C-alpha cells in the first residue's frame, strides 16, 4: 500500500477527476467509513484498565476523575473497609457509560494490597497471573469450534502504574514490577499526588525516572518499536518526552474564576486538575481516552496477546512431544528415519500439521 496517493491527490486509477460533475464519476467507496462508524456505534466499545500502586496514592480518585463518574471500587463497595488485605486481591468492576451515542463498557481492575506489605516479594505474580488468565480465556474462546460472534474482550488493555512522589528515583519494587509487566501489558506510569512536588522537583524526578526506565530496558507505552510511521513517531516522541505524567486527581468541584472546575482546595490555593499549568492530568486523559485508546487496544490485541498465544501454543506443543505416546505405531525407525517432527518450524508448526491432516482427508 506504499504507492497509494495522499488524500489531496487522488490517484489517476480509480475515479475520473471531474469534480464538477459530482455524481458522474463518484463511485461511493468512501461511504464505507460511514458504514464502519455506524457499526461501531451499534456495537459499542470495551476498555479494561488496571490500576496498580500502593494504597493511599489516589488511584480510585484518579479513576473517578478520568471518567467523571464514580467508577472506582471504593465508590461501588457499600462498606469500604480501609484495611490492607493480607494478600493482594484483584477486584474488577464494570460500568456501562455512554457519551454522545457512543457506548462503552469500562472495566476498572483494582489491586488492593500491592506494595503494602513488609515483604513485597513476588507481589507482581498475582497481577501477572490475572493478566495471563484473561489472555487464556480469550484464547480458549478463540480456538473453540462454536465460537461467539464477538468474543468478549476481558484482556487488560492498559495498566496505570502509580509512582509515589518521593522526588528521588524509582524504588526497586517499581523497577521490578514495570520490568516484568511491560512485556505483557501496556504500562502507563504516572506520578501520583504530584501536588507535593514543585515544578523543578517534578522535572528532575521525571528525568530520573526516564533515565532509570531506559537503563533497565523497560518499554512503557507508547513503545518505540510499535511506531507505525514517521507521523506516529513524531507524536509519540512528544509523549515520550513527557512520561511519566504528574497527575493530581479530584472528584470535587470548586468555583474558580466563576467556573466550576475539578480541583483540590488547600489553604494556599486551589489546584485545578484540568489546568495543564498545574498538573498533567489533561495529557493523561487525552492520551488514554481521546487519541490513543484504539491504539492501546490494538497493541494489546495484536502484539501482547499474540506473544502470549505463541508462547502458549508452543508450550502445549512441547508438552505433548515430551509425553510418552501410547500409540504403538510411532516408533523410531531402524533405518534412521526421523521420528515425529518437533515444533522446530515455529512459524508454521500448527499450520504444517493442519496441512498434513488435510491431505489425509
Amino acid at each position: 500500500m506504499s504507492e497509494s496517493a495522499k488524500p489531496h491527490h487522488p490517484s489517476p486509477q480509480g475515479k475520473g477527476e471531474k469534480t464538477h460533475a459530482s455524481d458522474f464519476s463518484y463511485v461511493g467507496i468512501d461511504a464505507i467509513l460511514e458504514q464502519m462508524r455506524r457499526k461501531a456505534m451499534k456495537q459499542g466499545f470495551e476498555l479494561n484498565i488496571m490500576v496498580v500502586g500502593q494504597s493511599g496514592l489516589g488511584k480510585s480518585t484518579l479513576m473517578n476523575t478520568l471518567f467523571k463518574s464514580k467508577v472506582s471500587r471504593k465508590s461501588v463497595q457499600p462498606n469500604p473497609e480501609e484495611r490492607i488485605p493480607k494478600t493482594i486481591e484483584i477486584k474488577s468492576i464494570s460500568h456501562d457509560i455512554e457519551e454522545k451515542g457512543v457506548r462503552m463498557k469500562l472495566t476498572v481492575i483494582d489491586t488492593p494490597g500491592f506494595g503494602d506489605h513488609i515483604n513485597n516479594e513476588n507481589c507482581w505474580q498475582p497481577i501477572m497471573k490475572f493478566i495471563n488468565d484473561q489472555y487464556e480465556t480469550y484464547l480458549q474462546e478463540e480456538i473453540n469450534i462454536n465460537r461467539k460472534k464477538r468474543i468478549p474482550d476481558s484482556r487488560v488493555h492498559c495498566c496505570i502504574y502509580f509512582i509515589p512522589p518521593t522526588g528521588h528515583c524509582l524504588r526497586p519494587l517499581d523497577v521490578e514490577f514495570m520490568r516484568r509487566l511491560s512485556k505483557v501489558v501496556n504500562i502507563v506510569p504516572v506520578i501520583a499526588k504530584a501536588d507535593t512536588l514543585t515544578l523543578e522537583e517534578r522535572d528532575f524526578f521525571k528525568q530520573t525516572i526516564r533515565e532509570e526506565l531506559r537503563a533497565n530496558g523497560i518499554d512503557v507505552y507508547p513503545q518505540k518499536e510499535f511506531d507505525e510511521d514517521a507521523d506516529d513517531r513524531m507524536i509519540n516522541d512528544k509523549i515520550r518526552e513527557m512520561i511519566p505524567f504528574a497527575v493530581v486527581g479530584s472528584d470535587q468541584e470548586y468555583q474558580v474564576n466563576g467556573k466550576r472546575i475539578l480541583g483540590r482546595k488547600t489553604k494556599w490555593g486551589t489546584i485545578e486538575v484540568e489546568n495543564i499549568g498545574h498538573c498533567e492530568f489533561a495529557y493523561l486523559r487525552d492520551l488514554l481516552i481521546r487519541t490513543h485508546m484504539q491504539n492501546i487496544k490494538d497493541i494489546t490485541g495484536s502484539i501482547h496477546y499474540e506473544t502470549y498465544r505463541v508462547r502458549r501454543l508452543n508450550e502445549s506443543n512441547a508438552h505433548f512431544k515430551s509425553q510418552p505416546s501410547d500409540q504403538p505405531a510411532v516408533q523410531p525407525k531402524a533405518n534412521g528415519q526421523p521420528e515425529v517432527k518437533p515444533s522446530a518450524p515455529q512459524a508454521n508448526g500448527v499450520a504444517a500439521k493442519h496441512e498434513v491432516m488435510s491431505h489425509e482427508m
Partner: protein
Amino acid sequence: MASTEIARQAGEGARTVPLAGHVGFDSMPDQLVNKSVNHGFCFNILCVGETGLGKSTLMDTLFNTKFEGEPTQHNQPGVTLKSNTYELQESNVRLKLTVVNTVGFGDQINKEDSYKSIVEFIDAQFEAYLQEELKIKRTLHSYHDTRIHACLYFIAPTGHSLKSLDLVTMKKLDSKVNIIPIVAKSDAISKSELAKFKIKITSELVSNGVQIYQFPTDDESVAEINSTMNSHLPFAVVGSTEEVKIGNKMVKARQYPWGTVQVENENHCDFVKLREMLIRVNMEDLREQTHTRHYELYRRCKLEEMGFKDTDPDSKPFSLQETYEAKRNEFMGELQKKEEEMRQMFVQRVKEKEAELKEAEKELHEKFDRLKKLHQDEKKKVEDKRKSLDDELNMFKQKKTAAELLQNQAQQAGGSTTLKRDKERKNLGFL
C-alpha cells in the same frame, strides 16, 4: 496466593453510570475509522454467469474504471476462475478490490460439474484464512483477505424463468457466500415482462430454498432503504462504459436506433440501486456477514470434520493442540505402517527376482558345460578319425612300399610275364 474477585453488579454484569462531564471517548469511532483508513480496505466480488452476459462491463461501470481483459471465447473445456486485484482510491479511502470472474461457465455441453470449481475456489479462500488464523506466529492484521464478500449472480434475460443450471449453482453457493442475483442485459426485456420475470425468479428461489443475501434491516438509519431495496431484488441492470451526450451532459448509456438506455437513470434500469446497495450502504455488512456467518460455518465444519470437539465426555475442554497431536501421531503411525508394508513387499520382490536370476544363471552354466562337453566329444571323435585315417594312410604307404619292393624283386628274379601274373595276383591279394 491471591484471591481474584470479579465484582459484577446487576444486569449484564455492568452498571450504567452517568457522566458528570465530557470525558472524550466519543472520539472512539473516529479513532477506529482513522485506523482503518490507514490500513486500507479490501473487498472481493465474485461474478458468476454465462459467458457474454456483460460481467466485465458491469464491473467497469460500477467502479468507474477500465479493468483489463478481453472478452473470453465460448470454447472453454471447463469452468475456471480468474481473479484480478485492483487498487482504487477515492478521497482518502484506499480499496483493494478483487474481481473474480467465472470463465467458461455455462459453455459446456455437460454442465453437471460447473458449480464445483466455483465452490472449490470459495472454499480455498476460506481455507487460506483458516490456515493463517491457526498458525502459531500469525499476522492477521496485515493479512490480505481474499474471501469472497459478495457474489453477483448474473441471470440471463430470457424473460421466462431461471435455468436449472442457475438454480443448482445458487443452491450450492448460498451457504458459502452472499448471493445477490441480478438480471443481466436487462435492456432486452420490456418493463412489463421484467416485472413478471422478477416475480417468477423470486418465487422460484423461495420454492427451492435458496438463501439470497438480504440487506440488513436492523439498523434504523438504513432499515428503510434496505427493506425497499430488498423488494426490488433481483436488480435488472445494464452496464456500459461508453458515454453518450444527453441534453448537455455526458452520461453512460447504450445507444440503439430506437433510443438510448441510460445506465444511471433509475427508470431505465436498476444499476443505481445495485451500486447504492453494494457499495454505498452495505459493503461493510457484506464483509461482516462473510466473516461471522459463512466463514464461521466453514471453520466449524472443517474442524469438526477433522475430528475436533469442544469438550470431551467429562466436559474438560479439549485444546486444539491435543487433538492435533493425537491426530498427527495417528497419521504418522499409519504412514509408518504403510511404509513398513511397502518395504516388506519390496524386499520380497527383490528376493524373488534374485532367485529367478540365480536359476537363470545356473541354467546358463549348465548349458555352457554341456556345450563344452559336446565340443570336446566332437573334437575327440574328429581326432580319432584323423588318427585312424593316418593309420590307414601309413598302412597303405607301408603296403605300397612293400609291394614296390616285391615288385622290384620279382622283376629282378623272373620274367616280365610272371611279373604280370604276379602283379595280378598281388593286385588280387590286395583287394
